[in-house]
């Protein structure tokens, strides 16, 4: 069996990989959200609050969290899509959303513990290692399998979306919204649908994160910092290829752990600052991300020998 620390890192890579994949489902189709921290926060805090204050099992809590996230996604998404708030304006609206979520959590400090965060009451009594009803497991291996399953499910959704007409429709919308409407695409509905899928998946990620860490904090599960981390991770890894967001998760995690080992906690918000700076560099120099650029370079290398023959004939698919 591998050690606890490497296992912990693998779990985090898969979990964040799943969350970044969820974000990219809409991000790659022109819906760049800076508000996904809100959905993650809703997932994390809803289960923990319902468990601590009302004794709801996290299974029921997760359903409540998903319903809550869906309501918020519709509340924000529908007006945006109906009134054609696109591009930068959409990003700004969602940016506000993630900050509102964080502020609400902090403001309800009597219930949520405010900025100190909250810990779900332990269900592991008398040396038990697993409490499935309370979704608490002290064995990291259990978490590895759970998170792996979610990650795989996320990739499956990605592929299902890719193969559907909805992907073409959303890509058409992101390129020429009006032309898309006039060929018969219900623009607002198409956008709302992918937003819902993405938001619900992210919310589920928040639930997993809370139950795995057994600690929630407004800054680590919501707010601008976490939203920016998702945008950065997905873009850095490559949001246009299926495994790109996962590569981005590994990259951001190594970066964060590296910074932590090098500087400890001496410079708060150093990671966020670095994400912001590197995001700019990635967008300028590597817009397709690490994996996207690598795959492109690989394709160029394998294609080169036959290129001269190709160019003499008609271009074909």
């Amino acid at each position, binding site marked *: 069996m591998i050690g606890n620390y490497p296992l912990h890192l693998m779990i985090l890579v898969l979990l964040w990989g799943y969350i970044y994949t969820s974000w990219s489902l809409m991000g790659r189709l022109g819906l760049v959200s800076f508000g996904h921290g809100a959905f993650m926060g809703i997932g994390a805090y809803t289960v923990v609050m319902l468990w601590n204050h009302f004794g709801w099992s996290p299974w029921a809590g997760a359903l409540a969290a998903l319903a809550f996230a869906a309501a918020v996604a519709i509340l924000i998404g529908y007006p945006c899509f109906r009134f054609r708030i696109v591009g930068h304006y959409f990003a700004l609206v969602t940016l506000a959303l993630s900050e509102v979520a964080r502020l609400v959590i902090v403001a309800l400090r009597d219930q949520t513990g405010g900025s100190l965060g909250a810990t779900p009451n332990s269900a592991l009594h008398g040396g038990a290692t697993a409490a499935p009803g309370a979704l608490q497991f002290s064995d990291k291996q259990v978490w590895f399998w759970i998170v792996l399953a979610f990650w795989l499910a996320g990739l499956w959704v990605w592929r299902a979306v890719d193969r559907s007409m909805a992907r073409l429709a959303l890509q058409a919308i992101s390129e*020429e919204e009006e032309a898309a409407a*006039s060929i*018969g695409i219900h623009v607002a509905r198409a956008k709302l649908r992918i937003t819902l899928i993405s938001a619900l998946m992210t919310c589920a990620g928040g639930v997993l994160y809370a139950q795995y860490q057994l600690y929630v904090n407004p800054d680590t599960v919501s707010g601008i910092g976490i939203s920016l981390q998702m945008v950065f991770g997905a873009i850095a890894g490559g949001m246009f290829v299926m495994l790109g967001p996962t590569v981005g998760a590994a990259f951001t995690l190594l970066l964060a752990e590296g910074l932590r080992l090098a500087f400890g906690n001496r410079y708060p918000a150093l990671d966020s600052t670095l994400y912001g700076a590197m995001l700019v560099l990635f967008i300028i120099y590597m817009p397709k991300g690490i994996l996207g650029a690598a795959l492109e370079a690989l394709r160029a290398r394998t294609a080169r020998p036959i290129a001269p023959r190709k160019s003499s004939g008609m271009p074909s698919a």
Partner: protein
Amino acid sequence: MQMLSLTKVCAGYSGFQALFEVSVEVEAGEAVAVIGPNGAGKTTLLRVISKLIGATSGEIRMEGASLARVPAHEVVSRGIAHVPENRRLFPRLTVEENLRMGAFPRAARKRYGERLEFVYGLFPRLEERRGQPAGTLSGGEQQMCAIGRALMSGPKLLLLDEPSAGLAPVVVQAIFDLVRRICAQGYTVLIVEQNIRQVLKVVGRAYLLEAGRIRLAGNSREFLDSQEIRKTYLGL
């Protein structure tokens, strides 16, 4: 039989009225042009028909049924296909994906294969370039692709917004030949153009739109003979 009718339609953008009580009629099987200078409201006229903007007053009917409550994405299912100004292809999608998107409505998807064959028959050039991103086509090819995309929905009425804009003279000629062929196929066509001399050779009737108002209506012969048109628009 009447295909499309606009009765006293007014429309505009916030704080600016572009169309004033415009009435236009198009019979089934007919090719009709709306001509006029830049900024006359020609593009707005087509956008109001395909519900991309709302009319502030007046009535639009397609085959007798009012379009007042029809949202933009359902206009195509009523048999109206819009080829927008500047073509508006989806540049990163391939030619064939663009055509596939033209058959997006459920009813059109069933006949995708047969219509694709029809469009490729009409534009063999598109078939040669089927796997290429639409943004890499030449101007004339892009126009073909835009018209092809519109035909994929199996429309009764085709709205063409300045198909000759921005094209080389020799290509303009080819595009007008194409419009003539499409009319000959039995499609009803409403075409907006600044290239008046050319378009009047293709259509049977025309309207002159100036500053948002219809100034003149008649058949193309009358237009070509009109002193006003000859002086102002044909430079004769």
